[in-house]
């Protein structure tokens, strides 16, 4: 394969812009291979975050021609001959350098999710779970925390509401706990208020960019919205809550 032109963002929070590089390619390469070759030969200090180069760790997230993708799972044969490939850091997160962003927002959100509160075991001390009862949650557990769904989500990307909004990655985390056969915690109020589920208006952008093909919206967010509606809009539950004195405060 011939050389390609990579247009790469270089710079930090203070200053930066795109620079063009010509890099030789070989058949079968992914974008991360080309970035590594650029790094080894022309731009030794080019900042890029990566670990496994096998689509399993979710480190090398960036925006390729404007689309949030993993650098290691984007084949070069996806692009037309002679096409310039533009590489930019994820826009939703503060820039550190070049293609690397500060994703600590996500780690803060993760800490706010209360851990599993275990139910009592069976009489023999074990926990039995049927495969069909965990299939859905196992789909959510495929998440590699690449945060591409967070990057593309317009609530995070375009609005300054980060504090009250957990984002799609943590909606499926909450869904996986809410549906977990061993978890006894009532999470609906936290999902509505602290995680800000109501701000999601189901545009499915998150689902489209998920490299693990998790049905974030259909299988995670919508069922959670239904549970919130059931608990907060059902008149019978509403009345019972009034009599009981409000929902339980979320405990940690």
């Amino acid at each position, binding site marked *: 394969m011939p050389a390609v032109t990579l247009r790469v963002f270089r710079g*930090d929070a203070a200053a930066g812009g795109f620079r063009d590089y010509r890099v030789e390619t*070989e*058949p*079968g*390469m*992914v974008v991360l*291979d080309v970035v590594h070759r650029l*790094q*080894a030969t022309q731009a*030794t*200090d*080019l*900042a*890029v*975050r*990566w*670990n*496994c*180069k*096998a*689509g*399993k*760790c*979710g*480190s090398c997230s960036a925006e390729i021609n404007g689309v949030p993708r993993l650098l290691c*799972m984007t*084949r070069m044969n996806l692009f037309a001959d002679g096409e310039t490939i533009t590489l930019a850091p994820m826009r939703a997160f503060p820039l*550190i*350098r*070049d293609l*690397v962003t*500060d*994703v*600590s927002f996500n*780690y803060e959100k*993760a*800490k706010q*999710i209360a*851990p*599993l509160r*275990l139910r009592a075991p069976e009489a023999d001390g*074990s*926990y*039995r*779970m*049927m*495969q069909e009862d*965990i299939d859905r*949650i*196992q789909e959510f*557990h*495929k*998440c*590699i*925390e690449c945060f591409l769904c967070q990057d593309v989500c317009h609530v995070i990307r375009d609005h300054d509401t980060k504090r009250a909004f957990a984002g799609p990655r943590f909606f499926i985390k909450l869904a996986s*706990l809410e549906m*977990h056969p*061993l*978890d006894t915690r009532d999470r609906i109020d936290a999902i509505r208020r602290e995680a800000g589920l109501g701000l999601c208006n189901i545009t499915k952008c998150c689902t489209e960019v998920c490299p693990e093909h998790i049905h974030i919206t259909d299988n995670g967010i919508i069922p959670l919205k239904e549970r919130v509606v059931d608990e907060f809009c059902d008149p019978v539950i509403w009345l019972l809550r009034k009599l009981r004195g409000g929902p339980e405060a979320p405990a*940690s």
Partner: protein
Amino acid sequence: MARDWETHEHDVIVVGAGGAGLRAAIEAAAQGVSVGLICKSLLGKAHTVMAEGGIAAALGNVWPEDSWRVHFRDTMRGGKMLNNWRMAQLHAQEAPDRVLELERWGALFDRTKDGRILQRDFGGHRYARLAHVGDRTGLEMIRTLQDHAVHQGIDVHMETTVLRLLKDGDRVCGAFAYRRDRGDFVVFRAKAVVLATGGIGKAWAITSNSWEYTGDGHSLALWAGADLIDMEFVQFHPTGMVWPPSVRGILVTEGVRGDGGTLKNNQGERFMFRYVPEYFRAETADTEAEADRWYADKTNNRRTPDLLPRDEVARAINAEVKAGRGTPHGGVFLDICTRRPADYIKKRLPSMYHQFKELADVDITKDPMEVGPTCHYVMGGVRVDADSAASTVPGLFAAGEVAGGLHGSNRLGGNSLSDLLVFGRRAGFHAALYAKDRGGQVKVEPSQVESLAREALEPLSRRAGGENPYAIQHELQETMQRLVGIIRTESELREAVGAIERLKERAGRVRVDGGSAYNPGWHTALDLRSLLAVAECSTLAALERRESRGGHTREDYPKADPEWGKVNVVLRRKDGGVTLAREPLPDLPAELQKLLGESS
């Protein structure tokens, strides 16, 4: 060019946040000490995330005949008896509890029909023993541990690389590190340090290992005065991807064979039947019919040779390719498409389906995979006390791949994840106890820090000329691949020693552009020191051991030698260099000897 540094103080610091590091940090925190967890990458990205097939633990859910005794026996035989027997015993005894504990923390393993944890077949294991989640078990494990750990009051220092351990007299008193985002130095004062840094596979060109695997913990321990053992034993996983070139080395789980896949050469022959060694002959099927029946009926049939331990299978593939019976791209075929229905393959091996489809344009439900050996794991590591994971340096502990002993000369698949849990917990527990007993203040000598900081900044401050760190790293990987690979011989090992020495000299002149903030060139330059150190240790130990055993095959000494079966090769630092010694293995108690059946 001196610089200031920030200081953190913890009772225990854990270096590395894969399975072993996370489990150690959780356990240390549970003992009530303050814990700092230092990870080279972001939390949750460590190499554990790539583990595929499962966690070996004798739960007995699928085969009630299974027990810790059988698991112990399989582990010892897989390691050709060079294992530290006490580690192998503790590992087999405690693994089931560690797996059940993960389940209580939220892990969701695949289930049996009656709702218990399902177990799958893997190489060298007598019974289906691996608790798993499809072929992404490592992801489930690391996420479960990570989500549990963030609620335990552990301070996590992400994208922070430890460059040197600090010592106060003969004791460890902390670590000197740098933060990637700002490029600033950090000093950790600590009463005890747990190393959980994983392996050394990035010293080879074809590897399943991620960028982090540069032998940091092995080198930190060696430089701090600890013993390393068994560094000649490097596992080449039989099945890595071979095509296209850019994905060469990416792992193809042993679960493919565990779930019925079989290896074939370009004649369509299931060649593994020709490579059954005497050592495993009595327990291995000798016809295809028996091998195929074994999956469903283990009582009346013997194991398929496709699931011999990894060292045996890797050598066999190597020999087939050399004999001209390989695939167009220099591997062999791994066929599951003619053996199992498409739905089954997609359900059991979703990541493999996805990986081949996206990276190689191969649909594994329709076509065979092309696979070949890839550097995967180092059996050797820091010499530890089996019960406490303590190294030979006071205050320094090690667990997981960075520790040596459990796996002997060859590790069985699935025994790594269980190793991380069992010995991660033990290391965290004993490091916390040590820190409590030690009490008092921890002193760090500022002049020691200043000199380390100056040394670390050298690649950034050199002006004219200088070596490119990526070029040196690349040359080292090619050297190790060519000269210290699956099959070794004295002349090539000597050539490697010379080449490594020359690369060390060049690494001393390495120069990088840019500043210290998130500069991969600088990071690569700093990693070179540990990468070269472990490459040297592995090569010297390989030269020393004049026999073939497990993950160490000498063309010039092709047989296992009973005398060599009684000793470890021990490496330790002396006068700026490395010395080698042969030291006897601990004696195996008679009651455990009985569990092993026939000996080698």
